[in-house]
């Protein structure tokens, strides 16, 4: 094991190297580009024995991975924002064709107005495409989760694509110490992909062609069932990672100081780190507050969430994007999951960090105080002064 000072993007690249990805295809987009640039260096230097396919768009990049995965290859791609949106059609193809692609996504705002800052609107818009979604808090978690993602994606009971996301700049371009495991350790955790070539030269097979109402529903149901099985497989994979690499990954909804908490804040990605410090401060003042990190968004950890709120009076969900006409997308999901909970806490959807704004300790503290006040609104935008009128 070696500790390197790496960016979140390079953590993705090193993970693809350690996973011995065989086919890489991607199209550059800020702030993702340095991920695939580094991988291109690995391939050019011979460090990574892979085919690097240059393409003219993100749509084509995912098509390359899709085809290679159908032939049994381990594939990797990465994108962000508009690039992910352009892939949208093929995201559905990937899950429907049960292609175990792993993709790094740098969470970036969607235009217009043009913006390259951290924002979850790009991946939240892909909620229903049948991809497993992980949101990382640190560069270490990026690297570990990409390795975990291959095990999940290629697991015989799952065979679904997985995206591992990281906040633009706050991780993608942030350098910090990252423990890079030895190749031999990773090989033990993640052996070569089990031969599972859906397509093979010389064998007539159809993949993804027309299916009528008689069978189509079975294919869709299977994708859903596979997604549900992630809940069972994930803890087993994480146990193995702990045993071999020595690091705990935390499951779908890791918690922080939630014992006896009256209010709990649910965060995603890098907001979590800042919120940990605030929880420590408030606990030191005797306030009963806790934190839960929504690490896996699909499949949604509804059981963990219901257990978490058993004795909680109020819950806040911090979203870095917005579902127009509703509330934050994570808040919407949390709210739906709690409908069947024995104890249903009051819920506030906080919108913060949109388009690369800082989510400061001061802001997180204010969220906790709003929740503790007992008079929390349903939806609250941080630092919005006035409504922007379209027609004056």
């Amino acid at each position, binding site marked *: 094991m070696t*500790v390197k*000072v790496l960016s979140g993007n390079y953590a993705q690249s090193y993970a693809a190297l350690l996973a011995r990805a065989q086919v890489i295809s991607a199209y550059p987009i*800020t702030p993702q580009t340095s991920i695939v640039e580094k991988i291109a260096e690995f391939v050019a230097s011979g460090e990574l024995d892979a085919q690097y396919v240059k393409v003219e768009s993100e749509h084509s990049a995912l098509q390359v991975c899709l085809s290679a995965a159908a032939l049994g290859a381990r594939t990797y791609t990465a994108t962000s924002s508009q690039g992910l949106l352009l892939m949208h059609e093929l995201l559905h193809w990937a899950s429907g064709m049960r292609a175990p692609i792993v993709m790094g996504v740098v969470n970036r705002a969607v235009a*217009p107005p043009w913006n*390259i800052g951290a924002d979850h609107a790009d991946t939240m818009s892909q909620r229903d495409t049948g991809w497993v979604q992980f949101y990382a808090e640190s560069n270490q978690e990026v690297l570990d989760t990409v390795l975990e993602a291959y095990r999940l994606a290629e697991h015989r009971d799952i065979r679904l694509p997985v995206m591992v996301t990281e*906040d633009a*700049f*706050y*991780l993608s*371009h*942030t*350098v*910090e*110490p990252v423990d890079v495991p030895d190749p031999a350790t990773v090989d033990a955790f993640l052996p070569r992909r089990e031969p599972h070539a859906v397509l093979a030269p010389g064998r007539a097979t159809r993949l993804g062609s027309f299916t009528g109402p008689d069978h189509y529903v079975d294919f869709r149901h299977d994708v859903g069932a596979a997604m549900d099985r992630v809940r069972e497989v994930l803890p087993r994979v994480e146990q193995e990672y702990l045993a071999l690499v020595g690091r705990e990954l935390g499951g779908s909804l890791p918690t922080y100081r939630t014992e006896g908490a009256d209010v709990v804040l649910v965060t995603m990605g*890098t*907001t979590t*780190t*800042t919120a*940990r*410090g605030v929880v*420590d401060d408030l606990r030191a003042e005797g306030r009963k507050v806790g934190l839960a990190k929504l690490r896996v968004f699909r499949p949604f950890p509804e059981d963990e969430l219901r257990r978490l709120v058993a004795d909680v009076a109020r819950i806040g969900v911090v979203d870095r994007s917005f579902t127009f006409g509703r509330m934050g997308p994570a808040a919407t999901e949390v709210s739906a999951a709690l409908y069947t909970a024995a104890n249903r806490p009051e819920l506030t959807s906080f919108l913060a960090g949109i388009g690369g704004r*800082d*989510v*400061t*300790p001061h802001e997180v503290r204010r969220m906790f105080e709003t929740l503790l006040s007992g008079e929390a609104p349903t939806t609250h935008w941080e630092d919005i002064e006035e409504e*922007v*009128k*379209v*027609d*004056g």
Partner: protein
Amino acid sequence: MIEIRFHGRGGQGTVVASELLAQAAFLDGKIPQSFPFFGVERRGAPVTAFTRIDDRPIRVRTSITRPDVVVVLDPGLLRTTPVTEGLTSGGLLLVNTPRRAEELAAPPGVRRASVDATRIALAHGLGTAMLPIVNTAVLGALARATGVVTLEALARAVEQFVPARPSENRLAARDGYLGVRNADPGAAAPAPAPFAVPAPLDRPEGPVASVSSEVIHTAAWRTFTPVIHLDRCTKCNFCWKFCPDAAIELDADGYPRIRLEYCKGCGICAAECPPKTIEMVAEA
């Protein structure tokens, strides 16, 4: 925890500087966190980068608004960017400039330091006169002025991680270390110079920005100014045609006039001028 904010321009190595500092701090046994912020990724555009260094894991992931140290890689930014924003008594302002530290404007109680990193960089062949790569010389000065990293760790980080010319960069770091000049906080520090950039845009009304991009004085990027020697000008208008920012207008007599509030100092007019009547003059 110490928080350092870098201000520079795209192409000067600002982002690399913040990363090299993080690598050096790590070699010193510290825990670093470093990241850049940029709106547009272009040469000459103002760039900000942030580095935090601590003995414990860092529990905040935001940009730095109350820095302990501000490092300015391009003195031109002193006129266009509020670089000392959030810098308070006890902090340090370090500027790449040929001027003495005493001449720098800083908030009360802020220590000042200067280093002629441009001269050092050019002496070691790093970058060009138009765009010197000053980051390693500035880091050397920072190491000396703050003690936040050792020169040994910085030299090792430079050797390992600079994208090009490691030996020259290591020497530049050493010269920056030796060449830094310090000044105590001024008793009554002069007020910051007025900004050349106009007030921020009005808040957009609806989906369309309510003001023309004409109010954005892109000259904030300029490090070299074109000066036309009209006595030799043939009125060929090549400069007018080639200016990528349409910053050159023709007067009633057909002579080119440069609208300096929009000129980014790219030097294309000087390169294209057939009789070579345009001279690029370094901004002070």
